[in-house]
């Protein structure tokens, strides 16, 4: 009997049970409160529904905690119990082998038992199922107990003076806090692991060699000077911003100050579509269209210069992938970030300021130049900073169109590599993550994180300051 229980899908069973209990408890609580108030026993502090919620809350939450504990620990407990019962020969096994063996047992058990020729294995699987059944029974018992006692205790408190609404609100707040805490905890966890792995890397490679070294050759020889990567990253981000800042800004000014509602209504969505294009599409656009074009132009410039006798060697590198190609396309990619954020801040400039300028006889362009833009400037700067941090963290376009060669070169037609490209290159195809080569990816990730964090923080501060001014 207990063994049969081991086969039951626990999760759905529990959920169905809890849902039933919750609705039951809700109705009991509500009906009870209604009955009280119908009997005219004083004014209720909270409406009957809240009493219902309150009872349901106390019925379900402790039970849910039990069920979740089972979900997290159930298997481990079964295993621990099983391990204690195993024959003596097993205790001689190395721990890793034992756990692999137990893994196969639990796999067999989850498929409904083992009916092969290995009798020991079959017996252990059956015992596993039995133990699982016991644990499930215990869990169901405990869960029911929690639900029952929670229900009874909560029901006893239903009374006119009882502040059920406040309790329910409090419970709701706790739940929301938990959700927020999950997000924060995840972030903290990621940063912590980044930091931890980076520290392991810096134990092997001195941090200054990493930050200031000019030779990067992580794949073949152990050279971890990341300066060329930083250079490449900033060079490409710079090219991108040279495109995106003016185009995005002017587009935003046009849209918010000049365009009529019809133009605005059609251009804004198009810009937003631009933001929705997957970066890999930009990437192959850069690789297949832009990079060859740039190369052709660079070759032509080289030829012209040589023919004109200005130089005797090619002036530009004219590589098939280039910083310029990646930067240009990335610039196009971040235009919508700049334009839509700037558009928002320009729109946030109070209309009364524009009215003031117009009423003094300022023309439209004077108003924009002298009043609207200065007022929106902090927000515009913030939008540019966010775009920069977006450009620095962008991966797909540079992986496809910037190249792999780590070097410091101001020639935009040369191929460069960036932090993100190298992280991808270092980690693809790896299974072991403790050689300096793979650890260096974490260090690069940390640097990237710190840089974008700084940009975002500055942007955030600026925007906050700006808000204060108009509130």
């Amino acid at each position, binding site marked *: 009997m207990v063994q049969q229980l081991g086969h039951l899908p626990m999760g759905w069973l529990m959920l169905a049970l809890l849902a039933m209990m919750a609705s039951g408890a809700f109705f009991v609580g509500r009906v009870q409160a209604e009955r009280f108030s119908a009997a005219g026993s004083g004014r209720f502090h909270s409406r009957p529904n809240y009493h219902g919620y309150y009872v349901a809350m106390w019925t379900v939450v402790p039970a849910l905690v039990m069920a979740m504990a089972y979900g997290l620990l159930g298997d481990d407990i079964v295993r621990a119990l099983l391990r204690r019962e195993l024959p003596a020969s097993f205790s001689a096994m190395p721990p890793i082998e034992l756990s692999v063996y137990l893994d196969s047992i639990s796999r067999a058990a989850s498929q409904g038992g083992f009916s092969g020729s290995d009798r020991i294995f079959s017996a252990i699987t059956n015992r596993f199922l039995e133990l699982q059944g016991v644990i499930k029974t215990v869990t169901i018992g405990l869960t029911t107990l929690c639900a029952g006692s929670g229900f009874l205790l909560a029901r006893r408190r239903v009374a006119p003076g009882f502040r059920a609404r406040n309790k329910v609100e409090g419970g709701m707040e706790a739940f929301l806090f938990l959700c927020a805490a999950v997000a924060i905890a995840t972030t903290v966890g990621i940063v912590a692991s980044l930091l931890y792995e980076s520290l392991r890397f810096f134990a092997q490679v001195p941090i200054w060699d990493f930050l200031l070294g000019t030779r990067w050759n992580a794949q073949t020889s152990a050279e971890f000077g990341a300066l060329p990567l930083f250079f490449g990253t900033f060079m490409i981000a710079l090219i991108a911003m040279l495109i995106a800042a003016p185009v995005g800004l002017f587009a935003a000014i046009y849209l918010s100050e000049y365009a009529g509602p019809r133009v605005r209504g059609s251009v804004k969505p198009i810009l937003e579509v631009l933001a929705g294009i997957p970066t890999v599409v930009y990437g192959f656009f850069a690789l297949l269209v832009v990079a060859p074009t740039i190369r052709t132009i660079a070759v032509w410039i080289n030829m012209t210069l040589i023919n004109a006798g200005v130089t005797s060697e090619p002036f530009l590198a004219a590589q098939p992938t280039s910083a310029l190609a990646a930067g240009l396309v990335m610039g196009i990619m971040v235009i919508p970030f700049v334009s839509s954020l700037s558009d928002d801040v320009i729109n946030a400039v109070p209309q009364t300021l524009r009215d003031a300028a117009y009423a*003094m006889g300022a023309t439209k362009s004077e108003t924009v130049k002298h009043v609207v833009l200065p007022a929106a400037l902090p927000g515009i700067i913030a939008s540019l900073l966010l775009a920069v941090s977006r450009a620095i963290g962008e991966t797909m376009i540079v992986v496809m169109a910037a190249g792999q060669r780590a070097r410091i070169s101001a020639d935009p037609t040369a191929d460069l590599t960036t932090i993100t490209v190298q992280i991808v290159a270092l980690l693809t195809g790896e299974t072991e993550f403790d050689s300096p080569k793979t650890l260096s990816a974490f260090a690069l990730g940390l640097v990237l994180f710190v840089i974008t964090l700084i940009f975002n923080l500055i942007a955030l501060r600026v925007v906050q300051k700006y808000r204060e001014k108009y509130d």
Partner: protein
Amino acid sequence: MESTVTSAPPATSPGTQANEPERLTFPRIECRDINVFYGDKQAIFDISLPIPDRSVTALIGPSGCGKSTFLRCLNRMNDTIESCRVEGQIIMDGENINDAAIDPVLLRSRVGMVFQKPNPFPKSIYDNISYGPRIHGLAASREDLDGMVEKSLRRAGLWEEVKDRLTAPANSLSGGQQQRLCIARAIAVQPEVILMDEPCSALDPVATARIEELIDELRKRYCIVIVTHSMQQAARVSQRTAFFHLGILVEMGETDQIFTNPRERRTEDYITGRFG
């Protein structure tokens, strides 16, 4: 600019206005059959209103009756509203300002405006005042500009309070000071007419009193039109009052007469607080 009227100085209190109608035969602004539409909705119906020079004309009426809309006709600020259409003639100095040939930018340098909420530019006090003279090229030199700034601030009664901190941001002033700054900013362009749309509604009684004093002072040089919700204010600062209701000009006349002896029942109901 100030040479046109050299005869009798304007009356200083509503009680001594015997010569008012005579001056009205030469109104500064003459509005004829003004109709204003927001899209299909008509907000103002056939309003004709003469506005005398060197005196204060108050526009009163319940909320939504079209006071602001009418006021904004006088410097063509309604042009900045997409859906707004103005019909009729507004004659100022012999020209119809609604004429297509009139450049609203030039017009607005002659007709200044002060708004309900103080709206200084987020610049320094000095830059706020000097902005108008700069864009209109009124100042020949830096000293000239300094002089204009000081004169405007003095006329707006703000000079003593800010002369030591002209470079401070205008937003650091109090609400009442900011509103006086806005008045100074409007004066700095050397307008002939000043429009004020509820200039005191965001201010406390003390600041309001200062602005009212200032308006009384400015009346000696400018043609002022003020929108107000306060009957007392209209009675205190204006010489003529026009009562609007539902986009129609119900009654206009000497402030004295409107408040003590209105011809129309609706006017009386409104000023005695029976509706609106």
